[in-house]
């Protein structure tokens, strides 16, 4: 240590604060003049502290999890009561379903009802959106061994998505229900009213041409109709939504904006086939 006389040391001690404040203003100017310097210093500090935070993260997470557990325990009583009530309700529904199932089986026995065979389906991956002449269409990648033909129906995991309009050797294009060119015959499930589902290129296709005197109810389920022999009856499509402008639209169950895998069903229906999208005429396969 350097030995200094006491008055000098006192003077230095008294001077150190003003000098340091001046240095602080200098730091401010330096940080303003060279923003990169401050940034580099911050990154260096963060790099140096990263292992510390990493070591600290584990106990911190444990504490946070513990607190969350505590909160859950506090609301558990309430949750239990709710679940018990829900369980009761579901049990009632289960009883109703079981009795209906038994009744259905009995009626079928009496009517000699021939059940429909389960339709065959393939699953195909969506590889591209849009493209082609349609605004709302997706391209599927089809393995060569898969038999795909026009008019097959594409469903995603929730409901009706569209129809196959073009088939190549390794790909197929599906016209979605939201496209402007899409017309789907539908039935309102509750009132059995027939209507047409007309695409608008928007997220929700419109409902048109329903029978007079019956207004589609808000929230009513819409399913496909077998009229026109293009679709089987009863595929889930969506629910009715009235807009503020008084237009009946259908909120689709299928998430047509982000399809990644669709199921292609072959119901063996050859009613109205969609028109060729390409100008090149292609001979229709005879069936």
């Amino acid at each position, binding site marked *: 240590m350097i030995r200094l006389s006491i008055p000098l040391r006192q003077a230095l001690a008294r001077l*150190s*604060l003003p000098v*340091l*404040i001046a*240095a*602080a*203003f*200098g*730091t*401010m*100017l*330096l*940080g*303003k003049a060279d923003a990169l*310097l*401050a940034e580099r*210093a*911050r990154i260096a*500090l963060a790099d140096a*502290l990263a292992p*510390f*935070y990493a070591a*600290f993260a584990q106990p*911190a997470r444990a504490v946070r999890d513990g607190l969350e557990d505590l909160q859950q325990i506090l609301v558990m009583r309430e949750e239990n009561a709710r679940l018990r009530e829900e369980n009761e309700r579901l049990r009632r529904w289960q009883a109703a379903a079981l009795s209906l199932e038994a009744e259905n089986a009995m009626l079928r026995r009496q009517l000699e009802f021939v059940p429909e065979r389960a339709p065959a389906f393939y699953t195909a991956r969506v590889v591209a959106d849009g493209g082609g002449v349609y605004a709302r269409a997706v391209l599927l990648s089809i393995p060569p061994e898969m038999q795909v033909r026009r008019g097959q129906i594409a469903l995603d995991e929730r409901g009706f998505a569209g129809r196959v309009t073009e088939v190549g050797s390794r790909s197929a294009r599906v016209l979605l229900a939201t496209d402007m060119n899409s017309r789907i015959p539908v039935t309102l499930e509750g009132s059995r009213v027939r209507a047409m589902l007309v695409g608008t290129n928007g997220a929700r296709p419109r409902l048109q041409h329903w029978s007079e005197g019956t207004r589609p109810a808000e929230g009513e389920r819409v399913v496909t109709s077998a009229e026109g022999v293009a679709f089987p009856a009863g595929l889930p499509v969506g629910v009715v939504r009235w807009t503020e402008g008084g237009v009946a639209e259908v909120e689709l169950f299928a998430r047509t904006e982000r399809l990644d895998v669709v199921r292609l069903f072959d119901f063996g229906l050859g009613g109205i086939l969609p028109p060729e999208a390409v100008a090149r005429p292609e001979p229709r396969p005879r069936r």
Partner: protein
Amino acid sequence: MVGRKEPSPGLLRRLDDMARAAFPATGTVLLMVLAAGPSGVPALVPAVTLPCVIFWSIFRPGAMPPPAVFLLGLLQDLLTLAALGTGVVTLLVAHGVAVAWRRFLVRQSFMFVWLAFCAFAVGTAALGWVLTALMAWNPPGIAPALHQAGLTAGLYPAFAFVLSRIHGVMRRAEETT
């Protein structure tokens, strides 16, 4: 000078003294680094730094010299995203005022020191706001500065409780040796 020379202190005692002298600054650094972690509370780092700096400046100014305050301010600026230097200036000014008033403040009750500290918190936040406005050349929102001042003033009693215990332990250790 007449008489025997004082015996040179042992290694352990010297280590003890060093630890005592270094604790205020290192403890503050540790708290700041912890506060800079992902706690979800903005302005926690300045709110943790100011109580420590003011407390040690008032009650143990020898352990919180201006260079240490300068380095703490620099660390605060680097840990937060404030303009470089604003934290240094505000902390140094607060430290200078606290040291100037310490003879008066040491003798007051806890309540009065807390009130004075609230004034420190408001003044520091205001000075930081002015400096940020000067650096960016347009005034930032006043709400974060108010939030910081409130948080700092509210955190002081907790810090003062723990730090005064530590301070008492240190003083007793110094008196016995």
